[in-house]
């Protein structure tokens, strides 16, 4: 029932998500925290796409098929398209806030940002 070798793809996707979470929690630089967010997004997209695999199937595109092939599930691929665009939107907004923080406080480390706030606040 619990089979780590047959489901090695799913276990490795969970390892990528866990590594991204470790990076987000233990780093002090703002850019490295945003990179960790991107790694979590990549792991989640890989997991969703690999849920739809079927046996020895090919891509679900009907151009030039031979007629007797198994096609993989196309619905998780359509959901992943939306998820990638949303990940890019969140990264763009987070980077613009990081640029503003750098212009105000002259540093990118999270334990030195709040030192001289309050006067400009």
């Amino acid at each position, binding site marked *: 029932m619990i089979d780590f070798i047959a489901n090695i793809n799913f276990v490795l996707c969970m390892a990528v998500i866990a590594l991204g979470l470790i990076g987000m929690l233990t780093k002090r630089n703002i850019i490295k925290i945003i990179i960790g967010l991107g790694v979590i997004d990549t792991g989640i997209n890989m997991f969703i796409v690999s849920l739809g695999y079927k046996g020895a199937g090919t*891509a679900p*595109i009907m*151009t030039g098929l031979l007629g007797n092939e198994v096609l993989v599930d196309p619905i998780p691929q359509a959901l992943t*398209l939306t998820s*990638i*665009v949303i990940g890019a939107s969140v990264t763009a907004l987070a*980077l*613009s806030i990081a*640029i503003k923080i750098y212009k105000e406080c002259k540093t990118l480390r999270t334990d030195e940002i709040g030192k001289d706030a309050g006067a400009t606040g």
Partner: protein
Amino acid sequence: MGTIVKTSTRAFFPLLLVYGLYVIANGHLTPGGGFQGGVLFGSAFILLLIGFGYNKVSAMVSDLKLSLIQSAGALTFVLIGLAGMLFANGFLQNWLAHELPGHFLSAGTMPFLDLAVGVNVGAGVFIIALMMLAILWEEDGVD
């Protein structure tokens, strides 16, 4: 940037534009579609921005026109959907005629929706790059 970067930017810019439009236009026949081709189209302009310097390129485009182009792309998507309410049963119904599969016009409204989404995404990527580089490069004097 140096001479090598400028020469290869001049060579690659039309190739990237044509490749982006090819991926958008054949979205219903081969892998690809609106979002993928739109990002390729916007990346051609970002290559121009990096290769030739920020001052020269930003003097040729204006923010207002790029925002208008992006809004036109998003509005075309909604207008095609509303036309589906007039000519067929519901919002975003496929209301154009079908031909034999394999042609450009064989899928109804899908190529035109692809084009609208491609313009939307491409203009948006270029606006994001312009805004970020305007603030980051204003004090370094990078040309």
